[in-house]
Structures are given as C-alpha cells and as structure tokens.
C-alpha cells in the first residue's frame, strides 16, 4: 500500500473548468471520503487520479511515483489502482470468477483458491464463483466489483459512489462488508460520495468539495463539529445558524450569552448549532422560552421547528426523540448542550 498525493490539480471538460487547484493527501492505509453535491467535480477528481482524464495542471503521486504532471503521463493500466464505480461495471459476458481474475496474469486466472479467498473477503459464499453478473443482486455485484479490484493487490483503491445505486437496507450491509474487506487489506482508499452519513462513518478523513475546490479536509468529528463556513456546515448535516456578536469569551445571541471558543474582540459572527445540541424542557423551566411551530416526524427521531420569544423571533430546529416530540403550538424552554461553533462572517 502507498499513500496518494494530489497537488495543484486543475482539470476541465471541453470549455468548462471542473477542478481548481486541488490539493489532497491520503495517508497509506487510510480512508478519505470526498464529499460534495453532484456536479461539484468529485468524480472528475477520481478520474484524474485513475488516469481516465488528463489534468490541465498539477501533479498526482501514488507512493513515490509521479503518475501525472510535469510532462509525465502514466496510462491507467500502469498505475496499479483498484476501481469500483457506481454500477459496479462487472463484465456481463464473464462469470463472477472470471470477473475477479480478469486483471491477473493468465497463469493465475484458473486459481480457484484465490477466487474463494477474495469472495470470502467481501463476504460472499464461494458457490457464487460460477454465477453470471445478472444473477446477482446490486449489493452482491458491488462486492464482486470490489473483489475484482482487490485481486491485483492495488496500491490505492478508488470508490466512485459505489453504494448510491443500492436500496437503503442493502446499502448499509454492503458498506459494512466493503469497509471490513478494505480494512483487512489495509488498503489506501478514496471514496467519492454525496451522502454525508456515508462519508462521516466510512472515512478517516473527510474532504468537502464545492464547485471544484476542496474547502476543508480533516477527521470526521472535527469537520462536523467545526466546519470553516456555512456551506460546509450544511453539507455535513442539519444546521441552524444564529446571528451573534462576540465579546470577552462569549457570543451574545437570541439564546443569550453563550461561552464559545475563539470569541474575542467585538465582531458579528454566525453561531452553528446542530439540532441535536438543543434540549427542550418544560415551559417555564431553565432556558429561553419558545413555541413549537412545526414538526417533522421520522420515527426514531423528529425535527421540531421553534420560534424563540422576543423581538426578532429567530427560528431554530431541534432534534428530539421521536415519541417524545412536543405537539405544534405547545410551549417549551430551550437550552444548548455543548459549545456552539463560531463561524466568521
């Protein structure tokens, strides 16, 4: 396994620039998720790493090898990466076993022990080796695609939205199986996805991409707690923003004066408060009084929209345990658990 380094990558489709000066490093044996909405350029980034597309500028290193940039161009088949795409792209005319051994030297293609080993690695029964791709479910196809990619012991594994075409239930099971297989191989992985839960749960590092730029990269807990801007905050999950003013270690806002790290000087800021940070108590208890204006019930939990009493009547959203959701129109008092995160305007 090797690390992967991108520096200053710019790329464009005919006449439309897609990537602007992208830097990203993925440590050997770690997993990085590139998270962004569709059209942000994340798939293009993966295709540049793979060599399916030439960057206009910048360099790609896999381990100590320069594979693109500075006049060097290594074609995809010589780069030694594994690749799993959204639809799996199994060869429809070949059996599962022939798909898995496709990339192996000819003398190794008959090695049924290796096929069995790889099927086991991705959590599929060994008797699937003789099946055709159209006899497999979507999740099974993705597992075979991963086994095929891992068969050559690639230096880096690239996953392009590999779970997004699957049903929700299958998605979680497949994701777990893939994560386990990749961990067992100690693979260096880049996952591209638009699903924030997938990115946060799957990866050691999350890189947030927007309009062809990586705006932030870091550990999942860190980027979720402390995004650098409002857009990143929203792309990682439900978020409320309260306007406030800093002063002496606190930020004064509609919820009162809250202690916040980095609140020095006097300036206007936004406070990021995640819905699960808001705690709803009985009317008249500690905290700010508010009225429930709307609820969205999901079962295990619910989102409650609140209007704070007061002049500006700021709107907040709180996450409650599903069955304990207060009815619309009822009155509650709101307190904040944990520290809000300060975002400069």
């Amino acid at each position, binding site marked *: 396994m090797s690390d992967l380094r991108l520096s200053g990558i710019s790329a464009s489709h005919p006449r439309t620039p897609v990537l602007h000066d992208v830097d990203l490093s993925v440590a050997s044996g770690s997993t990085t998720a590139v998270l962004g909405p569709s059209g942000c350029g994340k798939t293009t980034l993966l295709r540049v790493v*793979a*060599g*399916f597309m030439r960057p206009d500028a910048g360099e790609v290193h896999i381990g100590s090898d320069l594979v693109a940039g500075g006049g060097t161009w290594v*074609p*995809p*088949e*010589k780069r030694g*990466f*594994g*690749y799993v*795409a959204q*639809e799996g*792209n*199994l*060869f*429809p*005319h070949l059996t599962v076993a022939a798909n898995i051994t*496709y*990339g192996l030297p000819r003398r190794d293609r008959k090695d049924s022990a290796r096929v069995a080993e790889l099927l086991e690695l991705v959590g599929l029964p060994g008797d699937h080796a003789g099946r055709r791709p159209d006899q497999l479910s979507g999740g099974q196809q993705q597992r075979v*695609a991963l086994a*095929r*990619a891992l068969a*050559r012991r690639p230096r880096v594994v*690239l996953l392009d939205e590999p779970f997004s075409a699957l049903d929700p239930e299958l998605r979680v099971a497949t994701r777990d199986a893939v994560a386990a297989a990749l961990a067992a191989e100690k693979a260096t992985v880049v996952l591209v996805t638009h699903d924030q839960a997938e990115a946060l749960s799957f990866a050691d590092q999350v890189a947030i991409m927007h309009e062809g730029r990586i705006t932030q990269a870091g550990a999942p807990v860190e980027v979720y707690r402390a995004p650098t801007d409002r857009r990143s905050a929203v792309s990682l999950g439900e978020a409320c923003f309260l306007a406030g003013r800093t002063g002496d270690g606190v930020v004064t806002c509609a919820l009162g004066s809250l202690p916040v790290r980095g609140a020095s000087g006097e300036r206007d800021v936004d406070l990021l408060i995640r819905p699960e940070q808001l705690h709803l108590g009985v009317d008249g208890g500690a905290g700010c009084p508010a009225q429930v204006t709307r609820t969205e019930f999901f079962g295990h939990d619910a989102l409650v929209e609140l209007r704070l009493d007061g002049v500006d009547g700021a709107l907040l959203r709180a996450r409650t345990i599903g069955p304990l959701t207060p009815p619309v129109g009822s009155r509650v008092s709101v307190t904040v658990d944990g520290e809000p995160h300060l975002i400069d305007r």
Partner: protein
Amino acid sequence: MLRGAAVLVAALCLLPLVVVAAKALESGPAEAAELLWRPRVGELLRNTVALVVLTGTLSAVLGVGAAWLVERTALPGAGFWRVAFVAPLAVPAFVNSFAWSALVPGFEGLGGAVIVTTLSYFPFVFLPVAALLRSTDPGLEEAARSLGLGPWRTAARVGTAQVRPALLGGLLLVALHLLAEFGALEMLRFPTFTTAILDQYEVAFDSRSGSVLALALMVLAVTVLTLEMLARGRTRHARVGGGAARRPPRARLGRGLPLALASVTALAVLALGVPAWSIGTWLTRTDQAYESIDLGPAVGSTVVLGLAAALVTTLATFPAAWLVARSRSRLAVVLERVTYLASSLPGVVVALALIALAIGFVRPLYQTAPVLVLAYVILFIPRAMVTTRAAIAAVPPELSDAARALGDGPARTFLRVQLPLMLRGTLAGAALVFIAVSTELTATLLLAPTGTETLATAFWSASSSLDYAAAAPYAAALVVLSAPLTWLLLRSSHEEPSR
C-alpha cells in the same frame, strides 16, 4: 484511422451515384434530355408513380389497420398474427408474383402488380407501427382523455401524431422497394423504370439510354427520401420524464370481433396462404419439369456469395458505426447517412454503375465475384449499420474504464471486453445481409460471373421460361432461406421500437 476508414466506405457507397450521373450526362445535357423526353419514358413514369401511390396507400391502410387490431384490441391470438404479418417479408416479391401468376392465369398489369407488391410490402408498415403502438406509454392518451377529448378525438389528435413517424418510415421503405423492384413487375408485365433499364441493357446493351433512365430513377428515389424527411419534420416523440412505462390498454371489439377476425384471416391467407399453396402445388409436380433439377450448385454459390457479402459488409459498417455510437460527431452522422442514401438507390442503378466502372477501368474485374460482392455491400450496408451501431452503443464505455483499471491497454480491452459483447448484435446484422443477398435478383442478374447461378437467378430463368414446375423448388428454397428474417425483424423491433 477510424475516421479515414469511415470516409473511404462512404465514398465507395457514393460511387454509383456519381458514375451514373456522369455516364448519363456524358454526351451533354441536350442529348440526355432528348433521350428522356420520349413518350415511352412518360409511360414508365406514369406506371411507376401509379404503382407507388396505389401500393403505398393500400400498404398504409392494411399495415396500420392490422397493427392496431393486433396491438391495441382484444383480438385473440395477437402473438400469432404479429408473426403472420411480418412473415410475408420472407417471401421475395418475385417469388410471390410467381405464386400468383402460377395460380391465377392472366394475372398481370397494374392490378396484379398492386396486389402482389402490397401483399409483399405491407409488413414494412405493419412492423414499425405495431412496435410503436405496443411501446407507447398510454399516459399521453390518458392525459388527452383527462383534458376532455373523447376516444375518437384522442385517436385523431394524439394517436396519429404518435404513429406518424413509424408510418412514414414504413412507407419510405415500401416506396424505395417499389422503385427498385424488378422481378415481380417483369413477371407481371408491368413496365417501370427499373424493368425498362434492364430490358434496355439486355436487349441493346445500350448503356447510355439506360444510364439516362437510371438517372431519372435515382432522382425519383432521392425525391421519395426528401418527401419523407419533409413530412417527418423536426418533431420528436421521445418520452419525457421518468417513471416506468406501462402497457397500453386493449380496446374491446364487442360485436366487431367476427369482422376483425375475418379481416386478419383474409389478409394472412392472401399474403401467406396463396404463395404457400401455389408453391406447394407446383412442388408436387416438380418431376414434370423439362429438365431434372439439382439445387446443389445454386445453393452453394448463394451461400458463398452471401457469407462473403455479410462478412465484408459488417466489417465496412464498423468505422462509421463506432464513430456514431461513441461520439455522435457531425462528420460521423453525415458518413452514416451517406451510406443510407447510396443504398436506397435501386439495385439496378448500382449494378450499372459498377459495370461501367469495371469496363472502363478494371476490365479483368468485369463479371467477377468481387464486383458482385461490392454491389451487395453498397446495397445492404444499412441493414448491418443499424445493428452494429446498436451493438456498439449497448456496451457501456464504463466497462472499458474497468478493464483499464485492471491493467489492460486499449487493444486488449477491445479484444477481451468490447468484441465479445458486440458479437451477438453484429451477427444479427450479418444474418440480415446474408438473407438479403441470398434473395437478391436484379444486381445478381447483371453482375454475376458467367455460369454462376444463385437460387434467385436460377429461379428467374426457370420461371421466365414459364417452367413453373422447375421454378417451384428454387422458390421453396428461397422462402426457407429467408424465413429467419421474420424472427430477426421481430426481435429488432422489440429492441428498438422507434426506428
């Protein structure tokens, strides 16, 4: 390289057009006009136009009517009728005319020609219209009903608009086949441009007045193509939006059922029963033929020529089909269209052009198999083009990404992934070409090496000398050879309902 090859193929296909025009205008436009401005040419023109108009109208009525009954009503046995109304295409028109005149003495002239050609060619309308009626989402019709239109006005305003492109496409094929038809019309003594050109050539070996007639015929073909394009217009009838397509509902026939059943039965009897009965009857009298019959040599040369033409044609489609399926660049589309244009020329025009070329430039090739195969390629390239293009388009480009990621270079990717996946569709196209070649009469009569007889030409010489008993075995062999066509056409109409 791919582009160069595609340009070369397109140029080859355009060659006959250029040669015929050049030959006709060789001694100046004045003389050409003089050759053209004769009462005889006027008669040919009247005949040709009358045939196209009458057969076209009848084919439209029968084709659309049958398609509606089979696909949109509760007519029992829809699957059977669907096959029965495509199967007439497996009986070459000249075999059909033989069947009718062998059964009905004195069956000839405009009436006979219209009956035979209609029964032979109405499936060209039936096939695309039925495919369209089967596949169109009833959503549009339901929307019309919800907007206050009754069932008849819905059919008039929505139904006709939906069916129109398929009907026009079918009529185009009918018209082009009528312009090119030689055998059936010659046998029924109904002279058109094509039969006149061949007579001229065989009697007088007069290539210049033949070329002038060929030029006129070419102009007619291009006129038909243009008319179809204008009528089709720029409208598109794509399905907008997602959601699963549903099967349209079937209308109940109620008391009309006996009438409907009687009509489809009558049509099937006329289109299939008559030739089957007639050929069958004469087959039982084959031992009364003037000479003993050995099908062997004719079958042998037919198969060899068919296979050679199928192979070369399929290879020739590859560059343009690949470019169109993968890039849809303007050049690629133009190149593909050019091959269609050239092949809509009647076989006799292509044959005359190649004869002129061979005699003028490569004398040793005159009346040899390579020139004949070249004519087949030019005539039948669209049949393979459509299927090859679809086969290439059906291989997702992502699969080659996957193969590259697994360590294969472009060449090995082609051999291990794309070629195996395309093979089946490509073979279907090759089979269509093989069938077309094995029943081709006009160009084969003109270009076949001396002494080489195919099933079609052997049948032709027997039936021309009114030896029905000797012709019957060849007719039966031609029908057997074409029978898989029914299946191939039905299959492709399921896959690609819009064409």
